[in-house]
């Protein structure tokens, strides 16, 4: 049965020199391929500043956290700056508890995240 496992859409767009990866849906183990694929494509295209935008995501579990930790690790390896936006209060809290906020600034909105990355 797979009717609960495909509720995810990941798309990328440019906002100046920042790549915004929109994550719409559940960030669980099923999200791994799509998020990794979007991040890898952005990296191969030369992205140095990225925003993971969770505005349309309201379910992130521990498997999703593990995916994001791998992205953080890869960003460090590639010298990329990473920010996150659109997380609700609960997931902002979890990201702080886990320690992810030490490696990626967390902003309320995409606009704030882009501004922080560009120094605007």
């Amino acid at each position, binding site marked *: 049965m797979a009717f609960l496992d495909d509720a995810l859409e990941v798309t990328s767009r440019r906002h100046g020199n920042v790549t915004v990866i929109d994550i719409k849906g*559940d960030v669980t183990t*099923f999200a791994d391929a799509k998020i990794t694929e979007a991040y890898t494509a952005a990296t191969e295209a030369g992205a140095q500043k990225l925003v993971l935008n969770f505005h349309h995501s309201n379910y992130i*579990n*521990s498997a999703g956290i593990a995916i994001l930790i*791998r992205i953080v*690790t890869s960003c460090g390896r590639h010298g990329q700056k990473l920010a996150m936006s659109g997380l*609700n209060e*609960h997931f902002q809290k*979890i990201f702080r508890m*886990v320690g992810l906020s030490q490696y990626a600034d967390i902003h309320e909105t995409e606009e704030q995240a882009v501004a922080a990355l560009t120094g605007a």
Partner: protein
Amino acid sequence: MRRPWSSKRARSTEQPIELRLPSCLGYEKVAMDTAAVIAERMGFGPDRVAGLRTAVSEAVTNAIEHGNQGVRNAEVHVVMAIQDDTLIICVRDQNYHQFDRSYGIQRPDLQRALRGEDVGWGMWLIRQFVDEVEFTGVPNGGNEVRMVLRA
């Protein structure tokens, strides 16, 4: 706020709610949504309900992935009981593989995770969001995670 279980007497006599879920990732959402509805109706605030959703999600996911080890014809049994102002949720698997019940007492090491080591966050997250958690076994085999949320 709508509270159908507004009196202690009414709450304490509610029948437990039981779910028998296919042991398949994705079905943890059924359990967490059900738990959230009950907790909201009991009057728990948004922060606590959000935390409960995470705890239930992780408990059921653990049961599917680690307890039942992905065996597709297994099931996960979830029982939710209201005792006065307390919500008790038990998640049971069929124990194809017993998991380490002491796991998650210490916060997982993010540095190890950043180095690519396999670090599980689920049981630690459960412990962060409920007032009491107990990892035990049940007589006919199976792991049981008993979570308590108090008003």
